[in-house]
């Protein structure tokens, strides 16, 4: 197994840290948690519900913004700035480079998410609840959010290999939104009478990354048990789709002439 991607990953992480992207978002997250606490003060009885809902939504949203905006620049920025030239002349394969960049952004997202989760846990504790067993569900929800972010990042990376940051953002965001409503699209297709539409929406449902799979925020906030099979299946799903996108990205990037 090659270790060449490792320094690339660590350097990507270092870049994110030095770009101060991390700091701003942490402050933002803390701000959200503060707001959550305030809300918790007002509505008695559902304070836990609100904090978890709001917290998980923020974690998801912030992570999404990071994944997309940094992700679309992962490759295109290096090509644009020509920092890639002296790197690729070295004994590093193109796919190793891609893997390293990807892992670096994932690392950044994981670190960021971890801090925010700690903030969420702190907020829950602050509200006076001892951390109960059901709160472990929040961790499952966060894990699913991470899987989701890994997928979005892979999408952004893939587009970054051949299109400009703006287009990549549009594509990635477009696929993400479609993926969130994948279930609805398919249901809509089933209601229509048009058989072509039915088939089309069905095929679409199975092909696009179905982000709805990862959304267990309501279950977590209501303390409902999340089946282990879902955890296993979602993990596998994310891994397969990530692999798909990385393979595709490698194929595209390996043949690309750098200007």
């Amino acid at each position, binding site marked *: 197994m090659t270790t060449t991607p490792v320094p690339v990953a660590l350097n990507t992480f270092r870049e994110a840290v030095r770009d101060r992207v991390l700091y701003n978002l942490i402050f933002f997250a803390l701000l959200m948690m503060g707001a959550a606490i305030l809300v918790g003060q007002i509505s008695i009885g559902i304070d836990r519900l609100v904090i978890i809902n709001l917290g998980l939504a923020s974690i998801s949203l912030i992570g999404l913004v990071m994944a997309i905006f940094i992700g679309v620049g992962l490759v295109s920025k290096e090509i644009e700035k020509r920092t890639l030239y002296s790197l690729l002349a070295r004994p590093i394969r193109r796919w190793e480079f891609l893997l390293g960049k990807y892992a670096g952004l994932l690392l950044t997202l994981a670190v960021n998410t971890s801090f925010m989760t700690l903030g969420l846990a702190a907020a829950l504790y602050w509200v006076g609840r001892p951390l109960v067993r059901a709160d472990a569900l929040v961790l499952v929800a966060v894990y699913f959010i991470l899987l989701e972010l890994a997928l979005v990042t892979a999408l952004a990376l893939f587009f970054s290999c051949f299109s400009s940051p703006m287009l990549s953002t549009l594509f990635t965001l477009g696929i993400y939104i479609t993926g969130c409503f994948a279930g609805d699209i398919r249901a809509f297709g089933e209601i229509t009478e048009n058989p072509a539409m039915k088939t089309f929406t069905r095929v679409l449902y199975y092909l696009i990354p179905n982000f709805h*799979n990862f959304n267990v925020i309501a279950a977590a906030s209501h303390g409902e048990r999340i089946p282990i099979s879902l955890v296993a299946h979602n993990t596998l799903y994310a891994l397969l789709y990530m692999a798909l996108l990385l393979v595709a990205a490698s194929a595209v990037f390996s043949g690309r002439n750098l200007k």
Partner: protein
Amino acid sequence: MSRSGQSRLRSTALVAVALLFILIAGLQRRIDSDMDSLAQQSDDLLLRSPAAIQKMSFGYDSLLADIYWTRTVQYYGSRFTVKGATFPLLWPLLDISTTLDPHLLVAYRFGAVFLSESGTAGPGRPDLAVQLVKRGIASNPDEWQLDMDLGFLYYWRLKDYQSSAAAFLEGSNKPNAPPWLKVMAARVAQKGGSLETSRMIWSEIYESNQDPKIRERALETLRGLKAAEDEVELNQLADEYQKRFGHFPTSVGDLRSAGLIQAIPVDPDGYPYVFQPDGKAALDPESSVIIPKEIKGPPPELNKTHS
């Protein structure tokens, strides 16, 4: 990389991608069944308050209404077939859909039939159904169908014949209202509940609705009503038989032999009726026809009829 190396890589990648898509599709099916077992169908917009959702919809109200309506139909449809299913989210979903789009007639009509349905076919909340339909009437004062649905609810579920007649009457004054509404109002006011009136109402529900689920329900109910009517007739014939022969018939064949009927009467499902030991006609146990319980039992408790 050489050109041949590149094209080799490309074809390998293509094969890998295709394979992965197949695996992913297969996995998605498993995940779907996992998600179904989660009772809390996750809302992308976490809040259940329609007002909050409306505020967050950034003006895409009707689009969101459509999405929620689609989910409502899917929600109901997927649970309908599951034994022992409950429908806790049906009301919130309908509530949200109609708040986002107060002119979503189809949602009001759906709620009228299925919110009030009890047992395995609905949450059994005629009160909420009435509430929903009244809201619908308030936002859509020219739609006679909603008044008809209100009349239906009072008549069929709540057995409140006065309110029912009033609703039908109200509806009959609306633009394009069919003449039978006046007729219905009079019938219900005078005679209250009867099989014939019920059959008329359910026929109109069938005629005036396009939603396939509602029509299916209407047909089912109509079949049950027909069976009920048949039973009444058969019971009369059985009494006649009893008078003649001193005992009740054991089967419809007896009736025919006695010359009381010409042909073997079958229920809407094609099964001949049977006789119970007490001489009362009944449906063949194999038959899929179900006589609606609304025409059998007493009206529901009064505290639920307040609207």
